[in-house]
């Protein structure tokens, strides 16, 4: 059994990775312990308001690399520890049976070489599946630079794999993570994407049922939101990623002028998740949302921003607008759009009906008519001020919805 002290070290070193949702796989139980639930499940919420879904842990935090933004970097003076494959397997099984977790999210610092590190991680997940009979969720971090054979093999045992892009541009990567390069990260991502496509063509759903994701750190380097959203869109298109996660930079006691000294606010991360959401589910394109050298407007959400830029398309009539257009109205989400479409078959809807259906009318009112009636403002600047005022109160509320895969799933209900 792993001891408390090491568990503490390996947990603390893993906590800045945010891509820990357990969704996207419906692995069935085949006689052992566990299965995976497609929508993901949250098992607890920690003091930072984030969900615990997987046991997120490093095999080792003894890193030979020196990425400036990372707590585990070689030059940082912190306690170090590692765990054996059996210790990780046992902990996963025991936590899983007690229903503390949905599965394992295993990552590691580069101890020795990428190959050596990946081998140990692979050994762990194979053991967990074959010896311990575990059918729950496994998310494995791929170590860039490890042999392709190791990485491909891992794909047939785990539900999801991810390589972290880390920083949104090659230049920043060079500056802040000298041992890494764009190539060393993108090549394995591309390989995995290729294997994934082949597997799907051959109807092999055992290879990474929950696909591939990535994470990048926001605010440690100077890239604009426009660049980040374009990069995100490219990653979805080229590598068929399931999710791109953003992690606001938190200083990790490094005294270098290359990094900001204060933590980056969550608002920026929140806006990026909103924009990402619009890309994935609402049919928006990056170029519709934002110019390359622009940042997302902190005062209103990206959908509002888009609508204000395209005010000539509005207002739309709630009783007749197409579902696609309804979804583009600020304040109308999937739930309310489907309620509207169902209810308007029975009777003409008015503003009161919309309030009862919990449409966020404060935002929507400027963009819709109900049976020909319009109750909003016409000038974009006036609209923006009103919305910004009302939004300030609930901005941070929603933040969590977007940064937690499972929650957004349950809140938005059936958006896929």
């Amino acid at each position, binding site marked *: *059994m*792993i001891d*408390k002290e090491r*568990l503490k070290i390996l*947990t603390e070193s893993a*906590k*800045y990775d945010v891509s820990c949702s357990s969704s996207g796989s419906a692995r069935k*139980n085949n*006689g*052992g*312990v566990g*299965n995976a*639930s497609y929508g993901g*499940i*949250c*098992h*607890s*919420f*920690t*003091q*930072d*308001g*984030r*969900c615990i879904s997987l046991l*997120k842990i490093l095999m080792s935090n003894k890193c030979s690399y020196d990425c400036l933004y990372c707590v585990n970097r070689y030059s940082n003076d912190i306690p170090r520890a590692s765990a054996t494959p059996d210790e990780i397997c046992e*902990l996963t099984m*025991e*936590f899983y*049976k*007690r*229903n*503390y977790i*949905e599965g394992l999210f295993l990552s590691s610092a580069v101890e020795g070489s990428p190959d050596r590190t990946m081998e140990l991680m692979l050994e762990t997940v194979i053991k967990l599946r074959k010896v311990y009979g575990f059918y*729950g969720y496994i998310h494995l971090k791929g170590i860039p630079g490890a042999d392709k054979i190791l990485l491909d093999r891992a794909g047939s045992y785990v539900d999801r794999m991810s390589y972290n892009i880390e920083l949104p541009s090659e230049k920043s990567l060079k500056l802040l993570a000298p041992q890494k390069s764009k190539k060393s990260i993108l090549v394995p991502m591309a390989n995995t994407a290729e294997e994934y496509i082949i597997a799907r063509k051959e109807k092999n759903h055992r290879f990474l049922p929950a696909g591939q994701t990535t994470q990048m750190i926001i605010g440690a380097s100077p890239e604009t939101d426009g660049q980040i959203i374009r990069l995100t869109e490219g990653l979805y298109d080229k590598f068929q990623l399931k999710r791109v996660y953003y992690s606001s930079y938190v200083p990790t006691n490094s005294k270098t002028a290359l990094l900001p000294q204060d*933590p980056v606010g*969550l608002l920026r991360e929140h806006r990026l998740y909103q924009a990402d959401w619009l890309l994935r589910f609402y049919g928006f394109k990056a170029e519709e949302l934002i110019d390359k050298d622009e940042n997302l407007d902190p005062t209103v*959400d990206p*959908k509002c921003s888009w609508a204000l830029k395209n005010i000539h398309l509005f207002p739309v009539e709630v009783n007749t607008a197409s579902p696609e257009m309804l979804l583009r109205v*600020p304040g*109308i*989400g999937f739930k*309310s759009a489907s309620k509207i479409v*169902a*209810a308007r078959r*029975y*009777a003409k809807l008015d503003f009161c*009906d919309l309030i*009862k259906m*919990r449409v*966020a009318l404060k*935002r929507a009112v400027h963009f819709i008519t109900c049976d020909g009636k319009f109750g909003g403002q016409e000038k974009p600047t006036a609209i923006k001020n009103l919305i910004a005022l009302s939004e300030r*109160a*609930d901005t*941070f*509320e929603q933040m*969590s*919805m977007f940064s937690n895969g499972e*929650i957004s799933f*349950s*809140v938005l209900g059936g958006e896929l």
Partner: protein
Amino acid sequence: MIAYKISKEKDAIFCALFESFTLKERPIAVFSGAFQPSFDCQVKTINYIKNNAERVKKGIIKCGGISLLSTLFYVMRSSDDLMESIVFSVAHKCLSARKNLTDNYSDPDMLAFYELKTKISHEVHIMTGFVRFEKTLSGVWYSHITPDNDIVDLIAPHFKKRLPNEKFILHDTKRNILTAYDGKNLITLKSDKPVTVYLDKDEIEFQNLWQTYFDYAPVFERKNLRQQANFLPHRYRRNMSEFLGTLESEIACAPQVSDLNGLYKPDVTDDD
């Protein structure tokens, strides 16, 4: 004005519907538990007559098929004070119109019905995460829960699929209902007897490891107790071991960013 007091049987609401249709009268409220009628409201007790309930059930199936009937039963699991009145109105309207009107969300009753239904399914979903099993000496996994709605038997199949070779008990200590799985079948029963649980010798060790994990997983610079409480209301926490020993977590989380706290509002509104 008239209100119906119905008995505790599962399908007693259907007897109320029978009464209402036979006498062509419309009660302003239907209730089985506590209810404060206004002074001009007459309370009528509706006796449970199985045959009447069955006839109404058949009528409902004619209107909206088995699915309407099972949706009505599903919503009856709600512990909301207005549940009986809402279910009654919805069934009454469907029966009068001879069709399933439950997706007419411009009707306040249908909307209220929909909201009760969503609350139940939401709770079923989150409870599959919040259940905590403890290993007992006999190897059976035991869990006590106190959900808002009567859903213990709805949660159990999830664990049956997940842990097919284990034995477990889910105990709703609020309603004294247990669902047990013996490795083959699920059974649900009511029992008012107190349950004594003897823990396996390793149980406390694993609970401690879980506590350690729970205490050190959050990013302390982003402490946000309000958001935590939104997602995991305090009323659920008394059944979750990680919240029972808070001493260590208090120490660990000492530093905090105050500018984020206070900006969170407690209830979640619609998506955009």
